[in-house]
């Protein structure tokens, strides 16, 4: 992010902030959608985060750290939005269809379905670390700095998240193999 732009927005320039919002919204929305697994909630989290970023910008001491700071605020807005999901979040299941499909495609959809269900069972803390590391591409140290948590905490959250997803993935494939008459 352009440092000058951040500094101008920090000084109250709404046009500068509008540019920042336009430039960052896709990335921030992507992170929120993956953490929350719900586009509607992610949209709300994004909007709340952007307004919060605007309000808090004058307290940002290091403009060059804007991106990490924005991620942190977004993640906290995700935490705030998440409880709303519990009341109506649907469980999506893969249903058989009549149309002819490529077996790999079906398996890919099945994998996504299993990963999605396993991911929803993770805590928000674990989801946030996983998304920032695997989707945004931050190192674990950067994830820890972004979220304001010790490196070891980030590591343990990623460890447990990955383990849970791997277990779900393995279980789905074991089922596939059994159904195909091969040893699991």
């Amino acid at each position, binding site marked *: 992010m352009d440092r000058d732009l951040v500094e101008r927005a920090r000084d109250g320039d709404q046009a500068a902030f509008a540019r920042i919002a336009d430039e960052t919204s896709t990335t921030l929305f992507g992170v929120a959608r993956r953490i929350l697994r719900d586009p509607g909630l992610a949209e709300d989290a994004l909007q709340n985060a952007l307004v919060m970023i605007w309000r808090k910008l*004058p307290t940002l001491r290091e403009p060059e750290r804007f991106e990490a700071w924005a991620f942190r605020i977004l993640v906290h807005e995700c935490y705030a939005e998440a409880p709303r999901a519990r009341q109506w979040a649907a469980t999506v299941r893969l249903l058989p269809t009549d149309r002819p499909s490529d077996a790999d495609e079906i398996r890919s959809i099945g994998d996504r379905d299993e990963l999605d269900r396993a991911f929803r069972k993770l805590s928000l803390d674990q989801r946030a670390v996983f998304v920032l590391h695997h989707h945004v591409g931050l190192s674990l140290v950067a994830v820890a700095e972004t979220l304001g948590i*010790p490196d070891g905490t980030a590591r343990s959250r990623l460890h447990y998240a990955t383990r849970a997803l791997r277990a779900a993935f393995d279980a789905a494939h074991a089922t596939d193999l059994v159904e195909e008459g091969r040893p699991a």
Partner: protein
Amino acid sequence: MTTDRAFELAIRDWLDDGRDTVPRAAIDAVHLAVATTPQERPMPWRRSSLALPGRRAIGAVAAVVALAVLAGIVWRPSPNPIAASPSALPSVMTSGSPAASSGVGPSSPPSTRQSAVPLAPIGYAGNGTIAFSRDDPVLGDTTTWLIDPSGEHEVPLVVRTGWGGATELPGSGCCGLFAPDGRTIAVAYDEVNPSRAPGTLRTTTRVDLEGTWIGWVPEFCGACVSIEGINYVPRAWSPDGHILAVEIWSETDPDRDGIHLAPYGGSTLEGPDWTTQVTGNNRDVPVAFSPDGTELLFVRVDARERRGPLMALTIVTGSTRTISPPGAFTFADGSFGPSASWSADGSKIAFAATDDRGSMDHMRVWVADRDGSNRTALTEPDGFVTSARFSPDGAWIAFDRPGTGGRHDEWIIKADGRAATNLTADFDPGVCCGRWSPDSRALLVAGTNGHDDASDLLIVPIDGSAIRQVTTTPGLYTDFSWGPVSR
């Protein structure tokens, strides 16, 4: 079992689903909201009625210090009549805790995180002072706080400089570390110090329990360029309080990473240099000095990770040796605390480490002789057993391990493997990372019913008496410790 590659591809495919377009109306709504929403101008952080503003104040103080030192004057702040009584401080930021009893108004927005349900009764009867770091959930600042074991008098450790403690340093601190006499605490201060070169990051500041500034590490910057871009975080005091071992790393020059020893009065290391670099070109994290002060345990961490082999450094010769088993890792992380410790007589080292493949699901408590020989595992492999700490009297080793439902319990065990005792078997919240009380009668732990971002500090007596809660502001607690002196 699927392959790692297949799993990796599935994760990538699942994450990259290409549906990240934000509806334009959503962004337009933000622009509308921004047009009518005022920005929050920063409140004076730890304001003092006598304070000069921010960095200019530090610069002014530093300039005076520099001139004094250049002139050969041994400068120390005069006793601070304002800071002598915590209840008289005009600007102390109280927590939302009902136990915070200073009765003065906050100078910063109060925390929005309050304990909904106490984990345990408050009111431990014991001496000393507890230091801890707690994060700010939004801004990410970490502040060092002090609190009594009884849960009273919770105050941020505001660093005061200048004559009479007139100026409060802005910024935030972490990693508070009591000197052995309990009257001095070293903190890493996360603020650029203008008396030093641009790019100097965390400095180590020594203060008394009222926050009155005693000194920096390095003590004086005569050639500031030499410490440009360097971070200083205090990690271990020598038993006589004369040497502070500091973890140092450079943002640009790995040769400068390593352990530095900062001498204070009476040390044979005291000399013209402010610190002595004793390891280099490695991210080494000091853990603990031996009781005779001749050796220092440290963890040689990967630059991107906070774990690595446990090693011992002989101070005089600079030689090092590995204590943990080959291939095993120990942690060097503020939330878990020091992973290793010395027995009271210095003959044994206790530590927690992974198996030889570095698996965090297979961690054990180990005891070894001082030279690393006779390594004995005291526990079976468990997930995230991250510390093993001898009590100050040497009678017990404390550690935590997963219990029912994956929540951790605090345990004690004798160095020969006898008398393993779960101190929190009947306590529902998960606890971890126990630090001993100075009298070896209790452990200070972080406990939570939820995730570790919503923990509080608790005291677990080892005689089985009631667990007591200390703090009442849920947060991420790191670098907590229990000093011997009451305020």
